[in-house]
């Protein structure tokens, strides 16, 4: 018998707490596979957010730090500057990165901090139970906008890749998805590039990954296949996939 696939060494064999149909498990695995393939596990430090991925510190098989909500890019900056020989990634959700941590992510990009950011955008607050996120779509229901997001009350969803593309210091920005198989494969390639950029000293790289939250997207979508449809039909038109920045750096 031939072993075709195994758990990556960079991911510990522990039970994850993520809900059925959630994208975090897929994205964790992709990050771990990339760490394995680049041979960087023994010198990588990951920064776990506040949000559903708070326990990422126990899942990845590398040194990890967990700190205040939204401050991942600042923590990553401190680690990278103090220990330039390490590979540092910050793993953040949409509330963490695009709401409370907006200043930290923008300024990490402005400084072209040589770090890798994995931004999981599922358009909702998961850990706290389904409140409106900065990336919640227009009309999308959440526990703090029960009739759906409306512009007068809550403005419009923020498009982080588009915004950060205006920042000179941002080196590489790409939006991908994990709602289907081609998306998963593409995401892995993008993550690999984002880590390779750091190894090559090219500066700030971020991959925004569109992901599913069947639990908090409301009853209609409370099953994984409906949730993937919401990504395809609801999120993709608002958050188009693609490379938003790929700057040449020496």
């Amino acid at each position, binding site marked *: 018998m031939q072993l075709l696939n195994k758990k990556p060494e960079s991911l510990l064999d522990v039970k994850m707490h993520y809900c059925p149909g959630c994208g975090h498990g897929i994205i964790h695995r992709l990050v771990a596979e990339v760490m394995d393939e680049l041979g960087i596990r023994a010198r990588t430090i990951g920064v776990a957010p506040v949000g559903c991925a708070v326990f990422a510190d126990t899942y990845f098989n590398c040194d990890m*730090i967990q*700190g205040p909500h939204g401050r991942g890019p*600042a*923590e990553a900056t401190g680690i990278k*500057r103090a220990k330039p020989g*390490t590979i540092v990634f910050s793993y953040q959700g949409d509330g963490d990165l695009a709401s409370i941590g907006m200043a930290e992510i923008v300024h990490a990009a402005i400084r072209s901090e040589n770090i890798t950011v994995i931004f999981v955008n599922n358009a909702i607050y998961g850990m706290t139970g389904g409140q409106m996120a900065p990336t919640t779509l227009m009309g999308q229901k959440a526990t703090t906008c029960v009739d759906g997001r409306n512009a007068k009350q809550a403005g419009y969803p923020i498009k982080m890749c588009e915004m950060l593309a205006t920042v000179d210091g941002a080196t590489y920005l790409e939006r991908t998805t994990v709602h289907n198989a081609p998306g998963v494969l593409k995401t892995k390639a993008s993550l690999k590039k984002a880590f390779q950029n750091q190894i090559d000293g090219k500066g700030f790289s971020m991959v925004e990954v569109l992901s599913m939250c069947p639990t908090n997207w409301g009853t209609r979508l409370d099953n994984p296949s409906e949730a993937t449809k919401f990504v395809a039909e609801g999120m993709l038109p608002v958050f188009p996939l693609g490379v938003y920045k790929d700057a040449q750096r020496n």
Partner: protein
Amino acid sequence: MAEKKLMKGNEALSEGAIRAGCRFFAGYPITPQNEIPEYMSWRLPQVGGAFVQAESEVSAINMVYGAGATGVRCMTSSSSPGISLKQEGISYAAGADLPIFIGNVMRGGPGLGNIAGAQGDYWQATRGGGHGDYRTFVMAPNSVTEMANFPHKCFEVSFKYRLPSMVLADGILGQMMEPVEFKHPEIDPSTLTEPDWALGVNNNRAKRIVKSYDLKEGGVEIMVNERVKRYRQIEAAETIYEEKMLEDAEIALVAYGISARVCVAAMKLAREKGLKVGLFRPITLWPFPKARLVELSKKMKHFLVVEMSLGQMVEDVQLALNGRSQLHLYAKPGASVITADEIYKAMDNIVKKGAKEYAAAK
């Protein structure tokens, strides 16, 4: 002895931190501590360290949280409003047992207040400041030489017991110049043993996690109680104070930092006029030297607490005296300067006119 150098308090604190092995600094401009990030920005690269001007105090403390997690001696500094912003990060550092070092050059508050030297952050510094059950090791210098030398002790205590430490200075100490003497040998960080919790290149050892949470039932209780044991050790071993002319004194001034300097002037004035006055100066504000105050209270008739705040440290003194001596307060909030004359008059009132005690005056 080497040639004495005239230095600003803020510069002395910065140089003192570097000589104590500090190799990472993140900060954000705020008066009256701007000389610290300015100094660090050119001095740290000279010793192979890193400086980052952060986008905010919030970010700065979290950069230090990250750097501190790698076991590097690191520092941030700010002044009162900025220290308020850093409280979240300080709480996380306390909760993650990280030995980070913070300089607070206090100014008048609350709110934007003013930029003059004040002592209104005593409660914030000694009570934790951020959320949760924790302590911070707090030292209060009263001279530029102490500004230069206290970072050494702060790093030592921080790393030995794994908790954040702070030098609590004020705008006057930050801005004034005095001849400075560096008393400790310079520390080369490459000679220090890397802590067994530090994140970094792991050479396939077991992974390490720096975190402040534990969602298991009773988990945080265990974490905090483990920390409390270390707090008790610090109280027993690291409490520092200074006494001046208390042997024959009928009245003891109690003051820290710049207020204690004014008290020395007041003490000289009072002694010239025949009042027997001494000074008790807490140097560590946490741990507070309460045991020594308890001893002193057995023979000292009067205590007069002098502080440039509405009366914050007086509560620690009150707890220590526990009614054994008469306690008085001379307090001036809002970063207004206390003069030796005013303190003398307050003492004269107590001794000759039986001024009301602190508890009664409230």
